[in-house]
């Protein structure tokens, strides 16, 4: 169970992970030690997992290939999808991995420097796993929105600059 302060901290850090414990203390009307303790509890509980920036790679010079791969697998007796999932998320190319409902079982999001390397990952690493019965690879062409942030166009404040 997480208390109100902890839930508020999650809200605040989701918006901006750089906000410091003293600032959070001011914003929530708590004292700094209580905030630090709450953050420690959230980290230990693996609720706060990592503090990372949201990057729009398309605005950088980095050439990179991203793909979503639908994977159908044969679940294993007693272990279901856990073992094969663990096998797949070990690959460094895999950035995210989800168990899905519907027409396939796992959704794998992968990144590689070149198309060739990504193709090689699918054909030599992923498809060859014993439980994998089929894959379908979709290349990502453009990011419109990621992590709640719109990447395309100018997202400017549309309000009048001064109003009564």
């Amino acid at each position, binding site marked *: 169970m997480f208390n109100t302060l902890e839930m*508020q901290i999650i*809200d605040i850090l989701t918006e*901006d992970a750089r906000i410091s414990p003293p600032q959070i203390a001011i914003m*929530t009307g708590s004292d700094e030690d209580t905030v630090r303790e709450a953050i420690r509890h959230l980290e230990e509980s693996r609720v706060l997992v990592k503090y990372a920036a949201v990057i729009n790679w398309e605005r950088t010079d980095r050439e990179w290939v991203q793909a979503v791969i639908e994977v159908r697998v044969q679940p294993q007796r007693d272990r279901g999808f856990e073992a094969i999932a663990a096998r797949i998320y070990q690959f460094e190319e895999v950035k995210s991995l989800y168990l899905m409902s519907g027409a396939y079982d796992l959704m794998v999001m992968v990144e590689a420097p070149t198309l060739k390397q990504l193709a090689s990952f699918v054909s030599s690493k992923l498809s060859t796993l014993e439980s994998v019965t089929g894959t379908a690879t979709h290349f990502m062409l453009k990011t419109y929105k990621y992590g709640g942030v719109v990447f395309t166009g100018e997202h400017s404040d549309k309000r009048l*600059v*001064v109003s009564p």
Partner: protein
Amino acid sequence: MIDYNQKVNPAIAAVPPSGIRKFFDIVSEMPEAISLGVGEPDFVTPWNIRDAAIQSLEDGLTQYTSNWGRVQLRHLIAQYMHTRFTVRYDPKQEILVTVGASEGIDLALRALVCPGEEVLVPEPSYVSYAPGVIFAGGTPVPVQTTFKEEFRLSPAALRAAITPRTKALILPYPNNPTGAMMRRQDLEALADVLRDTGVMVISDEIYAELTYGGHTHICFASLPGMWERTITLNGFSKSFAMTGWRMGYACGPKDVLALMCKIHQYTIMCAPMQGQIAAEKALSQGLESDFAEVRAMMASYDRRRRLMVDAFTRMGLQCFEPLGAFYVFPSIQKTGLSSQAFCERLLRAEQVACVPGDAFGACGEGHIRCCYATALEKLQEALRRIERFLGTL
């Protein structure tokens, strides 16, 4: 050549333009400036409210509505006023849907005020009240509120301002620009003063949903004996982030509302259909979800509010804790600058726009209005710049 000075109504010509106009013109030329000068939420209207309006267009709902507003909407307003503020209004004859609460102010003043009558306007307050009184043919009488009393209207100040010519009191709480709110005991003290008088009350409660620190807004009409003399004005702009829709409403005794509706009927006809449908969605889903979306917006404002108060206090600019709306109103007196000069120099030096306090009445001098309905990182940057600016004075 026509001399238009001879043609126009001198009473209207004599009303000064809004004090924020000059500022608007300067800031508009500075696209990089961070503006704390806005008077509206930084949220966009929640999607399902917008979607309801889009759907209504697809359904071909493009007609006039009843002068009073759609009956469905008036029923929802009645339910809302009762659920949130324990006041009862008959949707048939005691609720009028208006084009923003602004139209409600104008209608109430025109329905009540006769030439030569006085209307008490606590200041600092929203810029439209005094001009509205003049347009209605009345005389605005400013009633000062003070920093010391956290800009609440005191019963003593109210009593001192009432004369035989006083027709009405405008009650602008939670307050723009100060963020002041009136607690129950504050309102009861005013009610005690008003009880033996014939003074009517125009209570502008547009910020009713935006209160902090565990305080909830008390609707003035809910106090014993006050319903009969109060026109309550409210709307969707601030609580549901719907400023551009221009949707408001007035609630009050049917004999006054009938007159207000008469003016509305002959001048406006009705509030726009799409706005009314969007407002219905805002209220119906709000009532179903206990206003979850409003509370989420409030939680976000509250954090920024605390950050602002703390920052100004640390900079040495005295700032009482605002318990309503989304403004802080720090004192800049110690800088020795007028609020106009402070804001203009801050804008030119650091490209941060605040609104001079005197735009909201003479007693707002020595203060600036800063709106915290702006993205957190922008607020933090603005505060850094204000601090740097103070260092140069």
